[in-house]
């Protein structure tokens, strides 16, 4: 498989395995939430690591709180939660529907149907059902005075699926009244204008609707009244505390008196503001039994509180920002940002303001307001999880009512719609579809039945019986739903069971889309950077063969050279892989493996003195030549990548040297011995030193590997060194023909060395290599262990430095110039 080649560590599931993984995940998720559907659904208890509990039936909460790991399940869960975000309900139904679609498809696929037909069928069926829904829905007239009963029915249907019946019925009124309270004709409903406040106090049935506002803080002065009737409400955002002026001017004072004066001067400003408020209070409250309440978004400090308290004003500080908006809607008036704007018209009105204290928590109730456009649902409950449960339910209830008001339609519930839609699909739609897509329509129709089926199952009824009796009724032309008490068919209209139109629409819309996408998945690929991190658990032979490459994203192969060394203990091999953008045709130039050829040159150190001296001498010459060259030539390479790119060209250029080598290798044993070398040097007309033992020294100098004699690769090194030392004449004498090409290659090679040798002393160190490897490549940083390994392979004599000959030797090997006896050599070393 192509991906395997591209990234051997990628985990791949193909065709049927991928499909079945998706189907199983969908079914698994369905199983989890299945039991929660409907009024008779059961409750899940979620236990956290710290022992915290959550009891819920709400699919949305459940999916959000659970940690899901399976990728398919995450996708489905996300769709379902998105459903909740847009329409406020239907999470469980979405999961069930997707699960059932997958289940039905599985049956067809196992019989050999291609998923594509099913998907086509789904598409047709979806459109048909949406059309059918338009006809099937029950319009609701929402005029200036909406039909409270319909709204109540729909709120009840939603709430009963979340809470027990008694509480749900109580909340129904609260929820409907809350929405009607904040509704303004011809404006979208802003549910934020319903404040949801909770108190850990009394019982869940004490939850109530406050027409007005409940604030979660109280006045901070002991002399302020705890209860006041007939109140003017001043909503303001004015700082009533002493603050340092914001301008940074230096004040200097030399004694305590001056300081006092300065503070007093700054203080006076604040007092001025307080006085303006008191003036207004005195004006409006003159002579009556009226009271005055200030609710401020900013702080009020104790001196200001004191002044206000003395004037008989109740003052609250640091009100929630959103409450400022709500207060104005609830009490009237307007929010004031500066005391200069104070007039009587800014004031709101509330019949009753009082404080309720629970432990250290204080609540201030602002009630009996005229024409409230904002209200508070005050949730009470004995413990946190009850409160959380009610809170979730109230939220959904509000959404359901809001949806109805906006849709101006509802849909018959209790499974009636699903059964009717299925009948419609089978009877009317299926005939219009040609070919195998019919199977898709059929599967879709079957899948719709999951809702009534699950309802029946959760009520402890027999699924088959229920479905059969429902379908019979529908065949007779009656639109019926399921009575979950008795299992008999009922008319949902009579019972007042309605679902939201927009919720149903959303389910029908989003379910098949996600199911289709999952069905059309033919491969699941897990690949990425993290695959590289976990390499201990790994790779069998084939992975090693092709080298491990980093594939940054799924199926994205960067079109450049990747340099990789697999860090394996036994075999350390260097691969240069050239992966081009058409991933499958990547070329791989892996020619030399096994460290043995190069890793065992340690014996070099135990050589006679003279030889070391000669070596040093030659090294010196080479270094001097290099320095000279570095001065005279411009820097040719800018990045490692540009060097690695050239490798194939080096190979081409050096191919012909093989003939030259064969020419010198007179006895054709693949090596040039000392005698042969002497003749060779004679032909090249070069003299390295005045000594007679010239050729012998050079021979030893260039014999880089453990095998005696100069093999082809070493010969190339030799030539290159000669070229460096004696100029282009050498190559011309080697071969007139190839001279230009060889010169080019040698120039490049030497430049490459100069690129790495940053300080120009003829030797490269590890840090140079690391630095160079990482500096110019913007895309990727080469891991340290790779550069380390790379350096180790170049450093043949293990002295921590790489000189030109070692570098050349390694480059030539990587470029893939083979020696003939490669195979035998490996056997020998093994």
């Amino acid at each position, binding site marked *: 498989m192509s991906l395997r080649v591209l990234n051997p560590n990628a985990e791949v599931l193909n065709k049927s395995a991928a499909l079945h993984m998706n189907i199983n*995940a969908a079914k698994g998720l369905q199983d*989890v939430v299945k039991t929660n559907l409907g009024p008779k659904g059961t409750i899940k208890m979620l236990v956290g690591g710290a022992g915290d509990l959550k009891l819920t039936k709400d699919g949305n909460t459940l999916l959000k709180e659970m940690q899901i790991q399976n990728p398919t399940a995450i996708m489905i869960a*996300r769709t379902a939660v998105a459903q909740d975000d847009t329409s406020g309900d239907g999470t469980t139904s979405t999961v069930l529907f997707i699960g059932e679609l997958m289940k039905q498809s599985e049956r067809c696929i196992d019989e050999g149907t291609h998923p594509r037909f099913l998907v086509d069928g789904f598409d047709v069926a979806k459109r048909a059902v949406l059309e059918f829904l338009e006809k099937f829905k029950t319009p609701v007239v929402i005029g200036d005075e909406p039909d409270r009963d319909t709204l109540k029915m729909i709120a009840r249907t939603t709430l009963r699926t979340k809470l027990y019946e008694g509480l749900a019925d109580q909340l129904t009124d609260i929820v409907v009244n809350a929405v009607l309270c904040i509704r303004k004709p011809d404006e979208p409903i802003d549910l934020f204008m319903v404040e949801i406040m909770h108190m850990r106090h009394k019982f869940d049935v004490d939850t109530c609707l406050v027409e007005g506002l409940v604030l979660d803080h109280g006045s901070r002065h002991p002399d302020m009244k705890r209860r006041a009737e007939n109140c003017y409400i001043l909503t303001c955002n004015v700082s009533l505390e002493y603050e340092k002026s914001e301008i940074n001017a230096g004040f200097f004072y030399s004694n305590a008196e001056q300081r006092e004066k300065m503070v007093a001067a700054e203080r006076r400003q604040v007092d001025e503001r307080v006085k303006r408020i008191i003036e207004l209070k005195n004006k409006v409250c003159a002579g009556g039994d009226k009271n005055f309440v200030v609710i401020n978004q900013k702080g009020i400090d104790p001196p200001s509180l004191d002044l206000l308290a003395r004037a008989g004003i109740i003052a609250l500080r640091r009100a929630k920002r959103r409450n400022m908006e709500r207060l104005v809607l609830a009490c009237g008036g307007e929010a004031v940002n500066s005391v200069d704007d104070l007039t009587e018209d800014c004031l709101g009105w509330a019949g009753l303001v009082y404080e309720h204290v629970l432990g250290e928590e204080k609540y201030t109730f602002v009630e009996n307001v005229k024409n409230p456009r904002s209200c508070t649902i005050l949730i009470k409950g004995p413990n946190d999880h009850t409160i959380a449960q009610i809170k979730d339910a109230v939220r959904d209830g509000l959404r359901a009512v809001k949806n109805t008001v906006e849709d101006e339609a509802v849909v018959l519930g209790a499974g009636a719609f699903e059964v009717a839609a299925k009948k419609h699909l089978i009877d009317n739609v299926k005939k219009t579809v040609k070919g195998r897509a019919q199977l898709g329509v059929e599967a879709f129709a079957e899948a719709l039945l999951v809702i009534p089926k699950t309802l029946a199952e959760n009520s402890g009824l027999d699924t088959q019986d229920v479905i059969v009796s429902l379908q019979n009724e529908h065949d007779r032309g009656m639109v019926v739903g399921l009575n979950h008490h008795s299992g008999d068919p009922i008319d949902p209209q009579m019972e007042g069971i309605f679902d939201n139109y927009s919720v149903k629409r959303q389910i029908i819309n989003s379910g098949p889309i996600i199911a289709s996408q999952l069905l059309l998945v033919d491969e699941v690929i897990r690949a990425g950077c993290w695959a590289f991190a976990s390499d201990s658990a790994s790779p069998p032979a084939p992975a090693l063969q092709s080298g491990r490459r980093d594939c940054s994203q799924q199926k994205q192969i960067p079109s450049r050279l990747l340099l990789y060394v697999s860090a394996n203990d036994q075999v350390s091999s260097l691969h240069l892989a050239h992966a081009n953008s058409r991933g499958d045709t990547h070329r791989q130039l892996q020619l030399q493996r096994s460290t043995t050829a190069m890793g065992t040159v340690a014996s070099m150190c135990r050589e006679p003195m003279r030889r070391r001296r000669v070596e040093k001498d030659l090294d010196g010459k080479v270094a001097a030549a290099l320095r000279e060259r570095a001065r005279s030539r411009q820097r040719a390479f800018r990045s490692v990548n540009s060097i690695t790119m050239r490798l194939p060209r080096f190979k081409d250029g050096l191919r012909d040297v093989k003939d030259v080598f064969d020419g010198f290798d007179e006895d054709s044993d693949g090596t040039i011995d000392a005698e042969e070398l002497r003749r060779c040097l004679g032909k090249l007309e070069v003299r390295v030193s005045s000594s007679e033992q010239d050729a012998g020294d050079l021979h030893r100098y260039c014999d880089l590997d453990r095998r005696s004699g100069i093999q082809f690769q070493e010969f190339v090194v030799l030539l290159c060194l000669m070229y460096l030392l004696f100029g282009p004449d050498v190559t011309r004498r080697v071969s007139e023909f190839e001279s230009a090409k060889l010169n080019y290659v040698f120039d490049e090679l030497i430049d490459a060395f100069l690129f790495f040798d940053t300080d120009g002393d003829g030797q490269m160190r590890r840090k140079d290599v690391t630095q160079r490897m990482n500096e110019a490549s913007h895309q990727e940083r080469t891991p340290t262990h790779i550069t380390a390994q790379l350096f180790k392979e170049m450093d043949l004599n293990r002295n921590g430095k790489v000189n030109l000959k070692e570098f050349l030797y390694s480059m030539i090997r990587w470029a893939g110039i083979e020696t003939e006896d490669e195979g035998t050599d490996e056997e020998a070393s093994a």
Partner: protein
Amino acid sequence: MREVVTVQVGGFANFVGSHFWNFQDELLGLADDPSADPMFRNAALDMDILYRAGETHQGVATYCPRLVSVGSRGVNHAVTVFAGSGNVTKSVAKPHERNLFLQSLSEEEQNPSSSNDQNTAKKNVEDKDLVESLENGVKFWTDYSKVQYHPQSLYELYGSWTDFDRFDHYGTAREVVSEWSQMEEMNERLRFFVEECDHIQGIQFIVDDSGGFSSVAAQYLESIADDYTNTPVLLYCVRNPLSYGSSRNQREAITRSLHDAVSFSKLSYYCNLMVPIGLPSLSYSPLLSVKDEKHFHSSAICAAAIHSVSVPLRLQQVGPASDSAHSSGNLDIGELVHVLSDQGRQNMITALDVAMPAPSLADRKDLSNIERSLHCLTPETNDEDEDPYAVESLVVHGALDAGGKRASISQVKDSICSAFEGRATKPKFSNLSVSSCPLPIPLPFPSIFSSSIGQQGEILSSQHPEGTRPKGSLDIVSVPMLARLRSSNAIVPFIERRSASLQRLGMARGTLGSQILRDWGFGKEEVEDMGEHLAKY
């Protein structure tokens, strides 16, 4: 009353905070303990500034920190849905076991009479075990916290699609930040504490800026700046040494430098004074032996430094000319900000230096030591060239005189002043706050002191023969501290690097960096704004 509200956001910030509150708790305990050093009893530190008094539903009085701590939910309600061969496995996360220390705390709560004098010996042995278990087994910041928090204080972020284990860059918190209800809830928690304050002096904000939490914090700071306009915010950006680990590939490296740049820009925008803390390695001093890989260790140092900086914020307010016997030089956050950021360089990013423990004042000649003993906790600073416009605020508390006696306030002032007079380059402005109360070492404090430190935190001249085992809370009762906030050009490399990486990686067209920024939800204009904002410093 000049209240301070503390906010901690993020994993390491909570580690630091936990130590910080342990110090405060220890101070409270020592103030009531007749057998303790009288310095603690007379200490002029006003704890009401950090703490609030309240009562529970049952009417029991409580005294808890004014704190909002934001963390990630430790372990999710882990129900794993796994589909392998068609069967569904549901697994419920195992609750974490409480460690020895927490067990002993809850035991003590149940029978408070058990800790009387006759079994002191036995108790000591137990303490040793406790210290041992903490030394090896701290995984969460709650493991060593001995403070009672208010239920409103602790807030856990949750995000069903957010993986808090890989919460390592600015973009990861998008879901959390965009969800209105969580930010609202966090603001509510803060409002609860602020509303109670009669006269709030400022907000002390500790954030772990090494990961996604800096995005949460930036959002939080923004709403704080909106809601409490004139309340100064003192921001500490802490990060643990591990967050500097080398990155695996280029993409990660780019992500990280962009994260640093973006979070620095965003965080500094909405605060009044910013103090970056957190070196790649904290084992800088021969007097301390810190294991960088342990959060328990590294956070202790940050917390000690933050404690020292906060000392002047709660010294008793006295007249400007007179000094009390125990303290001098009180400041509030507003003044501190004013002193450090509005003068000289107009620079609001300050470096924090700390000497833990502070050297003794005994040797008058050797006072240049003080300068040398200060070690910088802010990363990427450059001390080479002196800045004539530097402004600094120095805090000394619990300084010791010759022979391990406490130095008096005036003594400290005189000697420090004379030492600073002698400096070659003097800062433009320098503020000195002195308190006699040293840093108490609570029981759950890591053993990070070297063996040459005495019981009172004095530096013993000769190496003791008793081995090189690091000393911890059992051997050392308190240490003197010296801390300095410094606003000078030493911080320039820190800012420049961030500015440069934003320029280089984020703004260039079509690079990987700009792609990453787009993933994090920043438009081109926004990035340019950030770049300009950074360039201003």
